[in-house]
């Protein structure tokens, strides 16, 4: 089971780009990397998922180096509403079980005006 390590908290300001890095040294060949966002009193929400190189959607980008031992979630031009906890997960949800669907403590991102 691949374990992930993320910073406990980060601060930034509105309009800045924020990069949150997750370490996963024991990632397996079949593992994908998935990021979730959670606001207070809500369940986590899927942000982005990738396997290697770079993935971009309307919300964020995900950068994965060739060795896949880490990944970086990039949030462009953040706003106050991006203040949330961000979780990095590594694994496979194949219906064969819950392997890899382990949330750590996440990164508490605080955006200031």
């Amino acid at each position, binding site marked *: 089971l691949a374990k992930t390590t993320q910073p406990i908290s980060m601060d930034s300001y509105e309009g800045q780009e924020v990069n949150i890095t997750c370490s996963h040294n024991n990632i397996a060949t079949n593992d*994908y990397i*998935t990021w*979730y966002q959670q606001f207070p*009193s*809500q*369940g*986590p*929400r*899927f942000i982005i*998922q990738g396997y290697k190189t770079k993935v971009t959607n309307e919300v964020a980008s995900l950068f994965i180096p060739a060795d896949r031992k880490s990944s970086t979630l990039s949030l462009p031009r953040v706003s106050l509403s991006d203040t949330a*906890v961000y*979780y990095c997960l590594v694994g*496979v*949800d*194949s*219906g*064969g*079980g*819950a392997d890899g*669907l*382990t*949330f*750590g*403590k*996440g990164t508490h991102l605080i955006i200031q005006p």
Partner: protein
Amino acid sequence: GAGVSQSPRYKVAKRGQDVALRCDPISGHVSLFWYQQALGQGPEFLTYFQNEAQLDKSGLPSDRFFAERPEGSVSTLKIQRTQQEDSAVYLCASSSGGFYSPLHFGNGTRLTVT
């Protein structure tokens, strides 16, 4: 379309009471997960269903916790003889069950045991 719905939103139970928490997953989703989230912590896996089969219950903290999904749709998490340490938010998530399919979470049930 409707997302994952959980009820009740809040539940207060006296220690020793039994509680039942309900989860309505997204229609057609094969996989269903229950998580427990303590204040300030990330969600902790409790159990997993594929259709009506409970394939993994390794995260259930004790035999007081029981989950079912008899028709492969709605799921109920039951906690018997509640204890104060059971106080937490209980999250339900569903997915289409395919490889790497993302989880869709409900907003949880906040259980307070007094």
